[in-house]
């Protein structure tokens, strides 16, 4: 089971925090901070797995993270999840964000926090992996977007809509997480 999903930037500012296991508010903040310090210490060219911080769980728990330009995506999972599987799930999540926001960047995560949560809800539900098929996730989100437009009687979201968007093989890192557009990165900011 996935215990928590944390996204923060290179300065440790949280951008998305979602816990699937109950922790008190202060502990949540502490976990974010501790995780940030654990991850920050690590070079980009060493392995993407970390074992047990003392706060979340202990030896049964792992942190699996990926670093994209200005953002760290960290999944905290227990032993019933496959490490490499989760690593690819992060990739799916980020690529989905990329599709939904068309060139996703840190700002999208800040200003559309709610949307990011909705997308995440389609990927992971209550700590369990719900959907890993990117087209399907995008189809769900689009159905919801259409709903926003029409606001009215939507009767059926076309499930598994045959999307014209083919799953083109994206390179490992989405092209468009853009460093330049991040205000935190401006000289003197933060």
């Amino acid at each position: 089971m996935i215990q928590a999903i944390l996204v923060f930037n290179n300065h440790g500012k949280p951008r998305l925090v979602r816990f699937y296991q109950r922790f008190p508010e202060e502990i949540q903040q502490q976990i974010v901070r501790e995780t940030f310090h654990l991850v920050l210490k690590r070079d980009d060219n060493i392995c993407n797995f970390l074992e047990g911080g003392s706060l979340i769980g202990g030896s049964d728990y792992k942190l699996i993270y990926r670093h994209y330009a200005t953002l760290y995506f960290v999944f905290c999972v227990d032993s019933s999840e496959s490490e490499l599987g989760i690593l690819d799930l992060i990739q799916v999540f980020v690529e989905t964000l990329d599709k939904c926001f068309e060139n996703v960047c840190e700002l999208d995560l800040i200003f559309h926090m709610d949307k990011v949560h909705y997308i995440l809800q389609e990927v992971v539900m209550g700590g369990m992996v719900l959907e890993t098929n990117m087209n399907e996730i995008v189809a769900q989100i689009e159905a919801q977007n259409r709903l926003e437009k029409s606001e009215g009687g939507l009767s059926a979201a076309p499930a598994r809509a045959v999307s014209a968007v083919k799953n083109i093989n994206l390179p490992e890192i989405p092209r468009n997480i853009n460093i330049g557009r991040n205000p935190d990165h401006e000289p003197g900011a933060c």
Partner: protein
Amino acid sequence: MSDIVEKTLTALPGLFLQNQSVGGPAGVKASFSSRLGGLVRGITALTSKHEEEKLIQQELSSLKATVSAPTTTLKMMKECMVRLIYCEMLGYDASFGYIHAIKLAQQGNLLEKRVGYLAVSLFLHENHELLLLLVNTVVKDLQSTNLVEVCMALTIVSQIFPREMIPAVLPLIEDKLQHSKEIIRRKAVLALYKFYLIAPNQVQHIHIKFRKALCDRDVGVMAASLHIYFRMIKENSSGYKDLTGSFVTILKQVVGGKLPVDFNYHSVPAPWLQIQLLRILGLLGKDDQRTSELMYDVLDESLRRAELNHNVTYAILFECVHTVYSIYPKSELLEKAAKCIGKFVLSPKINLKYLGLKALTYVIQQDPTLALQHQMTIIECLDHPDPIIKRETLELLYRITNAQNVIVIVQKMLEYLHQSKEEYIIVNLVGKIAELAEKYAPDNAWFIQTMNAVFSVGGDVMHPDIPNNFMRLLAEGFDDETEDQQLRLYAVQSYLTLLDVENVFYPQKFLQVMSWVLGEYYYLLDKDTPEEVLTKLYKLLISDSVSSETKAWLIAAVTKLTSQAHSSNIVERLIQEFTVSLDTCMRQHAFELKHLCENVELMKTLLPVDKSCEDMVVDASLSFLDGFVAEELSQGAAPYKPHHQRQEEKFSQEKVLNFEPYGLSFSSSGFTGRQSPAGISLGSDISGNSAETGLKETNSLKLEGIKKLWGKEGYLPKKEGKTGDETEAPPVPQESIIMETVDQNITKKDQCQVHTQSKEEKEKQLLASSLFVGLGSESTINLLGKADTVSHKFRRKSKVKESKSEETTSAHMTCSYFGSSSEATYEDDYYLDTLQDRGDKELSKFSLNSELLDSESVTELPSVEKLSNCKLSSSPSLFTDNNMEGFHPSQSTAPSVANETSLAASLLEETSEHVHSDLVEVCHNETISVSSYKIWKDDCLIMVWSVSNKSGLKLKSANLEIAPAENFKITEQPGCCLPPTEAGSIKTFQYTVQMEEPFTEGNLSGFINYQMMDTPSVQLEFSINLSLLDFIRPLKISTENFGKLWLSFGNDVKQNVKVSESQAALPSALKTLQQKLRLHVVEIIGNEGLLACQLLPSIPCLLHFRVHGDVLALWFRSSCSPLPDYLLYQCQKVMEGS
């Protein structure tokens, strides 16, 4: 700088408009978005944490004003919510907005609802009281015709939902399993999984629906159901063995590319699905040859198909390897899996290397040679720049440590320990080092020095067991007394040197260990006076860096030393100083010391030298105070009253109002629908009227408060029971590998290569040979034969050990008719047991050997018919009603007539006195057949396994072992052992089974192991289902007692059950309950009935039921919280089944 930020942000509105599809007038939207923008801009422009705090507080207070203003529209509220979420994410308290989030979810249109639900799921937690207000909204949305609303409701349910409210939504979610849209079905499955996690009792009855979900035509729904199955199989694999075929078929189809291309990820078919399936198979096939055989093919295909072109294929491969090593081994597959591990370990990608090491760590116990193949890679990983890789390598080394390589491995671990700063790692590693040092230490000096390092680095974070074990080890010693003395002496010397070093601060725990050792064993130095060491201890005592706990240890050491010295200036000074100390504890110690010093004789008897292990006799009754007490009493003092008595008296004085109800009365209302304790009634009156619901809920909240008061006593016994369980020591994992011999071939090969390699390489080779010494192909063979040569230097000679070996002896129920040869084997076994000293105790074990027995008994025993008749007439004790389903001759299970008689013959005589189940064959092959039946005695459940030898051949030996089960206490019943070994003979094994914690169904598994002449031994596994009903007995009490008990119990469950016409009459319903559930009918009043039963050994459970039309209102109460739930479940089953 602010200019730049400004510029960045001017570009923003475009961004919003582009992505946020606009629902209303764009202007409103933009203004609110820019408010969030303003907030973010403000925050990013700040330079200090303090300023940020100020800004957010401002923001929060303005938000607070906005959300509570009556003019705020829902649309504005929606924007406010997003800002609140943002603040909360940064760690600021936004609790004032929680109620508004719930309101938004209740009242908003779709979009607003969505934000409301999101905010609720982020803000609240399962036990938050506000969450109750959301229940009605969720119920409404679940019934909505709008798919999106249903999806939202399902999502929130799977994220946070109050446990006690599950019954309210459960039927709705169950319905969703039949929904036409797959996404709804899938989410419903996950929501049910969530319920299974938080309240397994409540979803027990829908297991059949899980199976349907597994067979769903949509792959997504099937995949979702795997989550549930993974969990359930992990908890109890034997219950799901029949599904193995289905899982294998699914995996075959996935691997064969039968799924739609949609499911491909980087052209790998449904990788996550494959991973999940492989894990499930691994759990199912564990230690089970028959099940494992089913999956060999598909595993082979998976290994073959996985072409290494993407990360995710490695993920599948890794799972495959894991599964191959988990299940019953097959050599071909193991070979292939070993090759795969090689690919991982040698991969240049660090993630894969890490997993390779992990896999090696996992398989090392089965196949130590694999580590030898990769030894050079492992050596490289020891110096890897990534600390995670290093740690994993050390974990691997830890598993292969033996007496020969312990020095090198511990050295490597210590090196790593000195570098790491994380507490978690230190604690973990320190424990391992201490364990290895204790197990494999080559000599005293090394042991003490290693432990010194452990104490100084591990310091105060390490597990308290480490210093405790160390001190016990020193105190209890080993077999050789002179060895012991040397070790102690060495410890004393080494601590004296350590204390000589100036300006070094040792951790408190280390100082405590030192002071204890110096106090106990300083005399070994043979010095005239302990002046020198006293000076050192004194210095520590007056130092500021020493905690008061440590000071207590120090002064205890000083006291012990003083008794050996005749007089000491330092002690006098110490007494002077500390008798005026502000620390009361120290002052007391100082006074004690002072008084002891005045009476040297007393001191010497009080503090004898080297007697730390002697038992002390304590006069617990304090009889020496009798004179004093008598004197006080004669002078008019009040006699002593124990605490509880005083308490009672106090209460009885205070009590004015009588809170006890006058009698038992059952209201005729309040049985509408399934009611949870909190009592919100749902069903027909689900309406959107929030005011009404609000009212109801406040009512119910009050009710709950009262209930808790009442229930307090009901909870107490349950808690006690739990702690009782916990005190039982967990079984020590059996270390299955004892690696011993050096694989000389490998070392030789290494040496040959050394010549041609550079110096650096040489070093590595050298390290390798020192690390991997003792690992080799022979070691596995030598497992048992040479185990005795392992030199556990510091094997504890504990008092516990003797009692342990007694246990092992009693566990071996050796019968008196053992031949001489069998005794020899027994001795072997016994030796092994005491040597390994663990694990085996877990199995209650029988050894039966080949003594022949005339099986005349077959002819002597009465026919089956007679037996059952006799039983029925002679079982009034349990069931007053003779219509009980009892023993019927089981034609179906016993294939041949001859077999049948022999099986029947195996029923014990005792059986006829009690009610028992049919004889069921649990496993068989061509030679042997094992059947079993249950005897429901009044006070316990007896399981009888009868083993019959069907072949015409003699068996050399046969053992039946029952594996320990978590929830059961299994005791073997002696006195019924007959050797089964003659052709056609029968042998029964009898066990008493006790339930330790209530549950609905459990599994008891075991195996029979037998050996024919000249053939290898054969093992057959079997398992038996035990249900809660097996442990339920009628409880005969009077109506009056029923009433008393009813009030004293806190855990209750109510439920309405619909019954068929025929059942609706009270008498027939009663009869069913009485027969099937073994309930005792206490009294029948009109259309209400009172029944009582008890869960063995003596947990009572009461049932009140009322018939109303075709509805049966059941109300259970018990002192044990899960019991009513379980009984209810059984009740439903019985009612539906009949």
